[in-house]
């Protein structure tokens, strides 16, 4: 029985991994609907403008970690943290309606073949039961991070996500070509998605883009040479963020000519430790448990670090 379960699990994992690139490839090839013109020829609608928000002098796009089911259905502590962040960034329009694990911004519970399964898992997560099963969500999204980091599939996947980010920014009042700075804030897998999408986003909106990674697992992506700066925050008790430096050869120090190492040599990447913070579980980046001797929690430490970086970059001024 146990052997059957293990074999079945491995088989399911393998099948999941094999089909992981197909959503983005099918989207590009026009298999998911009408055989449309190339997605690149369909520029996002940059004329739509939300006048109410167009006086922002900075836009911040939040890209969730691999626990996200839709743009709205994300772990509750992340939601609380985003609300706290919103109050601390005057003059900035916060965009948090992009689901970074789909090239079409289609949440897992939307019109999909296995939407029922994802709704059931979402229900389990809300009930806080069967945590092991909700881990399936993480695996599904983790495979999309691998697609983003893969040099064969990455350009297509990242283009799709960049289009959705651009579309959302415009819907929030961003004016293409205005030069208004954009910050992509990616947590965990969202860090890689932010980096992957950045190259395309810069081209689409003619905008300066910064990336803030919170415990992000990132590959050697050409975007790292195009962005203004990459700020990577990590916890000393977070073994996951370091996986990027081990798994992706372009980040190994001996690969001196890789995009990552060239960006590093030019001082475009800053690593900052946030102290004794873990990736998941108690004491994580968004946790409210006290983890330092002076009584601070992970959520507060992370929040202060992000706000400080934005302030130092002069992005929190309300003056236009």
């Amino acid at each position, binding site marked *: 029985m146990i052997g059957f379960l293990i074999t079945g699990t491995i088989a399911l994992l393998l099948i999941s*991994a*094999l089909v*992981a*690139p197909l959503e983005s*490839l*099918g989207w*590009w*090839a*026009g*298999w998911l609907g009408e*055989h449309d013109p*190339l997605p*690149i020829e369909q520029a996002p609608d940059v004329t739509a403008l939300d006048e109410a928000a167009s006086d922002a*002098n900075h836009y911040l796009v939040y890209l969730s970690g691999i626990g996200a089911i839709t743009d709205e259905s994300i772990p509750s502590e992340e939601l609380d943290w985003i609300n706290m962040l919103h109050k601390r960034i005057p003059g900035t329009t916060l965009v948090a309606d992009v689901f970074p694990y789909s090239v079409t911004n289609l949440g897992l519970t939307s019109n999909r073949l296995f939407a029922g399964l994802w709704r059931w898992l979402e229900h389990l997560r809300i009930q806080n039961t069967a945590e092991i099963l909700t881990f399936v969500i993480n695996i599904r999204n983790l*495979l999309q991070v*691998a*697609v983003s*980091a*893969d*040099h*064969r*599939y990455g*350009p*297509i996947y990242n*283009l799709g996500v960049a289009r959705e980010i651009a579309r959302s920014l415009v819907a929030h009042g961003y004016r293409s070509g205005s*030069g*208004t*700075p954009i910050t992509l804030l990616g947590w965990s897998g969202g860090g890689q998605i932010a980096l992957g999408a950045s*190259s*395309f986003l*810069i*081209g689409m909106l*003619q*905008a*300066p*883009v910064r990336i803030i990674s919170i415990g992000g697992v990132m590959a050697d992506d*050409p975007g790292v*040479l*195009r*962005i*203004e700066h990459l700020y990577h925050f990590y916890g000393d008790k977070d073994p996951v963020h370091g996986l990027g430096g081990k*798994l992706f050869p372009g980040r190994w120090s001996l690969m001196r000519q890789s*995009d990552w190492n*060239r960006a590093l040599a030019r001082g475009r990447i800053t690593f900052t430790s946030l102290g004794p913070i873990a990736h998941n579980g108690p004491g994580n980046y968004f946790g409210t448990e006290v983890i330092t001797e002076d009584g601070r929690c992970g959520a507060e430490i992370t929040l202060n670090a992000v706000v400080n970086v934005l302030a130092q970059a*002069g992005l929190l001024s309300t003056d236009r």
Partner: protein
Amino acid sequence: METIDSLFQFLGYVWNGIGAAMWLNPRVFEMVEAYPRSRWVILAIVLLGGTSLLLGQSVILFVNRVRPGRFVLSLMLNGLIFAVDLIIWAGAIWGIAHLVFDLQASLTVIVRMVGLGAAPYTFGFLVLLPYAGNFIGRALAVWSFLIVLNSIAFVYETGFWTALMTVGTGWALIMILSATVGKPVVAIRNQIWHRVAGSQIDIRVQDLLEALIGEQADVPPVRKGR
């Protein structure tokens, strides 16, 4: 009923042949050398290998926006093209062995032996895996080469280095011929490809990247700040 039994028996031979070849089992080389009828099993392995490999590398079909029906046709065509490529390689190996090293063997035996080298490519669909697929693709290529190397050493009863020279020179010869007198043949093959796929199949992912974000990835963004 008998036909179905025969089919399953045949599939069993194919499966066992793949397994034995991948374990570099000398027994499989003996059987392939001794039984000409093994050619059908080997042909099946080659067609499966070619189809599976292109499935693994199907990003090229997706990038070029090949339609679903033509996608399936392209996979099957790749099986056939793969078979022809292996036969040509086998011919080159046989010729080099005969002319350069004065080694004697039947051409059909060499074709069957080289065909065995397609066994690892039946797992070529695994190249589709994100990130790990690249590594798997390289591992399968090395594995395939080792099978061909061992089978050639077995047939000619020769040592590792002579087998390596024979197989390697045969491969180099094909490369040279493809770039010179074989160009018209390559052009016809490509033409068939384009007809079946319904696309030029000439866009690479790297081309896309360069077209979309420009070749100079390290050029600073257009505007800096406000």
